């Protein structure tokens, strides 16, 4: 027989968990009873917009609810296909967030702001790679096989178990291919104009060439970025100096790094400092 007090507590917990959906996502501030935002967020919306931008979706959402829903300026140009009908405004916002790893806040009564989701992590070296991963839009992360950044640091992506950056079939090759294709397509389409020797301003490029130029710039930087930083957590010696292994290589180089010794496999990664 369950004691009465335990039963009572259990009931309260269950009742509380049942009421949670009333308050939307747990990251959102609780609304007061007099706040009109809550009522407007529960309004049903009809968003059969087809292919459109975030700005257009939020304009429609605002018009239908009386809310002012805005996205951070860096998100407004993103395109989506929207076929959402007969759902609450908060459900539509939650769907946008879940699709893209964004979050939304009530900034003032009746005002909602959508931003990229920021990780809440300690200021520590171990957090750096995850913060970096979180800075990359979700679709770019999927394209580059970058792990989904989580605040749970116990879920560790070990850099000692991944392949090197230049191994065929690796992620770096994928970036390089995207870079080569974008650059090549842009320059090929521009060659006759470029060969006149006159500079071509960005404003004279068509939409496709602009995308290719942007892609070239971004993939070029991603290509040069250390593959481990992009795809794994920090090496143990970076996250915790106490775990660093120091060894002398060739009498002149001090190796500082991490070693992974498991049955049949020994791998290490680190840095070489010339000390003599």
């Amino acid at each position, binding site marked *: 027989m*369950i004691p009465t007090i335990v*039963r009572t507590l259990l*009931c309260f917990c269950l009742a509380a968990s*049942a009421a949670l*959906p*009333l308050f939307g996502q747990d990251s959102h501030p609780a609304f007061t009873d007099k706040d009109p935002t809550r009522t407007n967020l529960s309004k049903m919306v009809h968003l059969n917009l087809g*292919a459109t931008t975030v700005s257009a979706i939020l304009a429609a959402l605002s018009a239908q609810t009386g809310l002012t829903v805005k996205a951070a300026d*860096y998100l*407004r*140009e993103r*395109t*989506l*296909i*929207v*076929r959402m*009908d*007969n*759902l*609450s405004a*908060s*459900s*539509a916002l*939650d*769907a946008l967030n*879940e*699709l893209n790893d964004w979050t939304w806040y009530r900034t003032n009564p009746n005002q909602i702001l959508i931003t990229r989701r920021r990780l809440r992590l300690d200021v520590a*070296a171990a957090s*750096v790679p995850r*913060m*970096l991963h*979180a*800075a*990359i*839009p*979700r*679709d*770019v992360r*999927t*394209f580059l096989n970058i792990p989904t950044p989580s605040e749970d640091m116990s879920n560790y992506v070990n850099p000692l178990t991944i392949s090197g950056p230049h191994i065929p*079939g690796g992620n770096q090759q994928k970036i*390089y*291919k995207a*870079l*080569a294709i974008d650059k*090549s397509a842009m*320059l090929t389409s*521009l060659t006759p104009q*470029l060969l006149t020797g006159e500079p*071509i*301003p960005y404003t004279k490029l068509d939409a496709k060439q602009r995308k290719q130029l*942007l892609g070239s710039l*971004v993939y070029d930087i991603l290509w*040069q*970025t250390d593959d481990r930083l992009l795809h794994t957590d920090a090496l143990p*010696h*970076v996250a915790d100096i106490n775990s*660093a*292994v*120091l060894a*002398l290589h060739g009498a002149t180089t001090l190796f500082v790094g991490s070693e992974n010794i498991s049955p049949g496999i020994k791998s290490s990664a680190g840095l070489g400092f010339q000390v003599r």
Partner: protein
Amino acid sequence: MILFCWWLKKCSILTIRSLCLGLISCPVLGQVTVPSPKAFEQKVQLQAVKMSLDDMLEVVTKQTQVSILVDDEPILENTSLTFDGSLHDTLDKVADSFDYTWRVSRAGVVLMSKRFKNPNERPQMNMPEMRDMAREIVRALTLVDYIRDEAQANEAVRRLFQSLTPAQHNALESGARVYGAELQPEQRATLQQAIFTRTFLPALKLWEDAIPRLENLQHSTLLARPRTPTPPTHDYFYRYRDADGKLHSFEIQHMVYGDNDGEVRTP
């Protein structure tokens, strides 16, 4: 409250649990109407001839009343698809045709994301978002303090090596390892700074340089300069002026990615 507590004592746990589950699924209180798994068993008829993803989804949503949200638009502009089956299987078919995956959001909206199986499919890149990404990456790479000069960091480690005890030197010379935990606190601090410098500084420099390149994209120009007269070859440059009017120019290497994976050549 007294009545509620009395009722709690009288009710069985199972009854209360059922009531709570009922509350969760109540659309009025929860404000969320999540389609049941049965909703994905409803029949869909699709006869698409050269139809875009959006047009197909419009047909599907009209027949099923399920909401769908898709990231970006696919590189494949249209395709033909004839299908008669459950909503679940229809979504599988449509998603597969356009190189997408799908899942259901907490509120019951079908979310479709690109899976990038097609080698020509790309994530969307918008200038403001890429600029923000570069700024956020720089913020991440400066989360911890370190020396912004690789030569200084290397010199600090050289001095640290000289400051090791004779026993530690002997250990290293004999091929043994010394561990970070065995160092003095100030030695550990020096080594940590050097590790951070060597680990994060190269990427930081890259992404710091990326910010003005991306910020000045709209005012940039592309330029070709002759490299050799015969055969005629050219070097290509991306150029922009910064806020102080200083001209920055860097080469864009013209690369061709071969049909065979891994083959990259410069024309």
